[in-house]
Structures are given as structure tokens and as C-alpha cells.
């Protein structure tokens, strides 16, 4: 015993101290390397994008004109809001419904586990494949016209679905069973317990998860390429082609004209601000809720 104590009380050799110090520095350096791109992107976004921002930037549509005024990005902003709103209307209720099934009824049954597995599978599918799927099923077959904004929303909804289901499931599981049992003991029917007790308690978490899904959908380009296509003007008509921020940026990226590239930066800054705001609001709601994973 004393021999062990002797050995463990021996002072740390300089070599070991050096390797400890080096390792710490390397790990810190790598961590900084991870942060640098974010800082760089934000810096460039603000540097280049802010110059593009002006009142006409947000209130005029892109004109597509070669000479003269290239226009702003109004149709892109509106298009993104409209299509993502429709996608949320589809994805959030369905996603919460499936999560409710998994937590309240399915639990650990075979069927529920299969569903969970497939939801996991959906999380890994690249967004371009979702877009391709909707392209094959809805656009090529000319269901109600060719390219249309609502088809873009369907593709976005497919993307959002697994995210909503997973986060909702986590939050619903956190609702204490005692709440459910108390309500059931008082004679409330199962459906009332779910709709009046479980859902409201889990609501902040569900909203958080949904907002994060919305933030992700707002930034997606590939699914919209095949479904909503690209158009210059604003419209509220979801049965026609519609512009969107990611597509607008994608179109302006390779251009030779400097002011078009600057418009891309301005649109990118707008998009990042939107996404960051959504993420922030989601985190705020999560912080204030009583349930936290």
C-alpha cells in the first residue's frame, strides 16, 4: 500500500507535463479553428450584405434586367415565408400526431419501434432526394400543373417531419407520468388527458422543435429547385411557380455582375438573420419552459 502511495505521490515528470500542455494547446487551437469559419461567414455577410440592404431592396422584386435596375428580393422573402408557412401547417400537426402516438399509445411496441426506426431513416435522407421524390410524384405527372409553390411546400414538409417528430417525442416523454395518472384517476377520458393536459404542458418544447424545423426548412434550396422553380415576381398564388430566398441566392451566386453578387450577399444576410431569429426564439422558449431534457 505504501509503495502504491509512494508511486502516486511522485511528482509529474517534465515530459508528461509538456505533453499535457501541448495537448491542451492543440485542443484549444482546434476548437478555435471550429469557430473561425462562423466568425468569418458572419463578418463577410455583414460586410458585403449590409451594403445591399436598402428600402428598395426589400420592397421591389428582382427584375432580371441586364442593364438598368436589377431590383430587390421582395418576391424571394415573400415566397420563403409563404412556402415555409404552408409546409409547417402540413408538417407540425402530422409530426406532433405521430409523436403523440409513439408516446401515448405505441410506447415500446414492435410497431412503434418500427415507426421510430423509419423516422430515423427519414432524418438521414438528403434534401435533394426529397425534392427528386416530389418531382417524380407531383411535377412530372403534372398533378395540377407543373411547377408549383405548394409542391415545394410538400417537399419542405417531408424534410421537417422527422425533426418535428423526434423533438416532440422527446418533450412528450418528459411530461411527468404523475400528471397523466392524476387526470385519469379523476375520471378524465384518455383523449382529454392528451389534449388538455399533456399537449399544453409539452407545448413550449413542441414549439421549440417546430421552430428549429422551420429554420431548417427556410434555408433549404435543393428541394425547391425541382418543385417551386424560380420566378421573378411576387405572388400569393401557391399553384404557380414561386421565388424563394435560397433560390434567389443560388441564382445570383455565379454571376459576373458585381451588383448581382452583392444582391446574393444581401439576400444571404436576410436569410441568416431570419434563421438566427427563429433559432433564438426557439431557444428562449425552451429556456423558459418548465420541462427541459
Amino acid at each position, binding site marked *: 500500500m505504501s509503495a502504491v502511495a509512494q508511486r502516486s505521490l511522485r511528482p509529474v515528470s517534465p515530459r508528461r507535463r509538456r505533453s499535457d500542455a501541448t495537448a491542451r494547446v492543440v485542443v484549444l487551437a482546434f476548437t478555435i479553428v471550429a*469557430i473561425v469559419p462562423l466568425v468569418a461567414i458572419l463578418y463577410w455577410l455583414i460586410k458585403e450584405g449590409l451594403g445591399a440592404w436598402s428600402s428598395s431592396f426589400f420592397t421591389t422584386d428582382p427584375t432580371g434586367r441586364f442593364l438598368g435596375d436589377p431590383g430587390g428580393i421582395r418576391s424571394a422573402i415573400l415566397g420563403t415565408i409563404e412556402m415555409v408557412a404552408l409546409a409547417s401547417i402540413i408538417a407540425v400537426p402530422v409530426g406532433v400526431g405521430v409523436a403523440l402516438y409513439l408516446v401515448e399509445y405505441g410506447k415500446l411496441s414492435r410497431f412503434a419501434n418500427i415507426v421510430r426506426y423509419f423516422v430515423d431513416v427519414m432524418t438521414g435522407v438528403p434534401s435533394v432526394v426529397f425534392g427528386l421524390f416530389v418531382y417524380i410524384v407531383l411535377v412530372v405527372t403534372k398533378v395540377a400543373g407543373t411547377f408549383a409553390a405548394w409542391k415545394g411546400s410538400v417537399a419542405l414538409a*417531408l424534410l421537417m417531419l422527422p425533426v418535428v417528430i423526434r423533438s416532440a417525442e422527446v418533450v412528450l416523454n418528459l411530461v411527468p407520468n404523475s400528471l397523466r395518472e392524476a387526470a385519469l384517476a379523476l375520471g378524465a377520458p384518455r383523449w382529454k388527458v392528451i389534449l388538455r393536459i399533456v399537449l399544453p404542458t409539452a407545448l413550449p418544447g413542441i414549439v421549440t422543435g417546430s421552430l428549429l424545423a422551420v429554420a431548417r426548412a427556410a434555408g433549404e434550396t435543393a428541394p425547391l429547385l425541382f418543385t417551386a422553380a424560380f420566378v421573378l415576381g411576387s405572388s400569393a398564388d401557391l399553384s404557380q411557380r414561386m421565388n424563394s430566398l435560397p433560390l434567389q441566392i443560388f441564382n445570383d451566386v455565379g454571376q459576373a455582375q458585381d451588383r448581382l453578387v452583392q444582391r446574393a450577399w444581401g439576400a444571404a444576410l436576410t436569410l441568416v438573420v431570419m*434563421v438566427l431569429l427563429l433559432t433564438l426564439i426557439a431557444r428562449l422558449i425552451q429556456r423558459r419552459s418548465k420541462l427541459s431534457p
Partner: protein
Amino acid sequence: MEAGSLTPRATVRGGRSIHERSPRSRAIDPLLKWFLSGLAALILVLIAFFFIRLFIEAKPAFDKFGYIGFVFDNSWVPSQQLYGALPLVVGTLITSAIALIIGVPVAIATALYITELAPNRVKAPLTVTVELLAAVPSVVYGLWGIAVLAPKLQPAEQWFSDTFGFLPLVGGQVSIPNYFIAGLILAIMIVPIVSAISREVMSTVPDDHKEAALALGATRWEMIKIAVLPYSRAGISGAAMLGLGRAIGETIAVTIVIGNAADIGNTIFSQGYTLAAVIANEFGEAASDPTHRAALIAAGLVLFVLTLLVNALARYYVNRASRPASVPKGMAG
């Protein structure tokens, strides 16, 4: 009505006791259950439909070129009706490999720093900052990559290519959009997800493992080497696989910075193409050509299958990691 009172004679309309469910209530319960089960089943139906439809649409391409031929033929020339996807597959693999080589060590280091080495006050802000990297849309990564990163790195890449030209895969003229830049951007994009999962796994390392190492006189780094890393190995592998899955499927950022040349480049600084990028670029030109369209969908199917396999592997590793510690109860504490 006092819910807690047990007055046996309290009744509601219809003469039944308040403790009995109303017929309407009784009907809604199974309705809700079946409705929600239906939604859940919808997911299964959707995925199955997804896969089957993709396969049917892709079949003409596979019929024409064979499964092996489509994936391993080295010629993607739509104007001559040739659809061998090898350049695309190779491009996908090269860019993903570069992404893993660069991104995973950085992500692990970040996770290590946050869980083990960072002062407490820095932990939360640092976590949020790394997660913010995930919030940036991929088209913005592409814009920044092609407008800022690629031109700025080109002189350095050219110097590297000239100095180390004897190495395989290095040498020759450096193109501004190339495999390396695409891999670098992908590395940045996968850092948040690999880091988040690694962090989760590392924070489940039992404290007694760590304390035991420290008690035996290990320095902090030695403790990490002895206690944290081996324990988290499975989880980190799973995290890396998930990052790989993400890198394979990334479309827009890659297509902006890779040059979109359907050839296998000679060096990592040549232009290339990936499975995801070809779909985004060529679907417009394939609108009236059934073979071209089938070929693109086949590329999408290959991509889908690849990500399925990688993610399944990832899930296996992560599940293994979240199993309880295999230390026998007698030895701990």
C-alpha cells in the same frame, strides 16, 4: 361539482353516475387512437412508397447499363447518352473523405474542450456558437466558399501543389473550384453534428473512471486518453458516421464550389462532380429525355442507399455507446 367527493347518487344527464364515461367520450378515445396510429402508419407507407417509386423511375437506367455498369462506368456524357456514374461516386467519396479527415478531429477537439477543459463560464456560449454553425443554410456556405474562401486559398493551394507535387493526387494546375474546397466546406458543415453527439457521449463517461485516473496521478490529458476517449470511442465513431452521411448528401454548397466537371480529376485541386450535385444541375436538361431523367433518379437512388447504409452504421455505433458501462458492479467505487 366537487371532483373529489364520492356522493354515490351524483348523476349527470342520462342518469348515469359522474364516474362513468359518457358514450360520446367513450367513442372518442378509440377514434383518437386509430387516427394517431394512422398517422404513424402513414410514415411507413410514405417511406415505402418513396423507395419503390424511386426504384421504378430509376429502373430504365439500370436496365440499360446494368447495376454494376451504372455505378462503375467512367463516362457521364449526357449528350451522347452515356451514364456511367463512376466520376460522381468518386467525387462524392473524395469530398466526403476530405470532410471527415478535416472535420472529425476538429469536432472531437471541440467536444473535448467543452466537456473537459473549458472553464465553466465558457461552456454554454461555446456550445451555442458551435451549434450556430449548423443554422447557416448550405447555400450561404456555398456563396461564402466561392466568393471568399476559394479565391483566397488558391495561391496557397498552388504553392502546396507545386511544392508537394511528387505526392500522389497533388500537383499541376490548381482550379479555383475543386475537390479540396468542397471537402473543406463540408468539413465545416459537419463539425456541429459530430461535435454535438461526441459531447453527449463524452458527458456520459462515469465520473469514477475519470477520478480513478486522476487519483493515480494522471495529468488532465492522460486522464482523457485513459478514461474519456476509450469509453467514448463507439459514440464518436457513430458521430463521425452521421457526419459522413451529411457530407454525402450535401448538394447546394458542393455544386457551387466543385466545378461540376463530370470527370475524375487527377488531383485534389481539380474540378469534380458528386451524385448530389449532378441531380441539381441536370434535372432541367433531362425534362424530356426519359433515359437522362432515369439516370439522374438512379443517381439519387444510389445516394439514398449510401446514406441509408452509413446512417444505419452510425445508429449501431451510437446505440452501442449508450448502453450502460460494462464495468462489473463490484469494481466501481
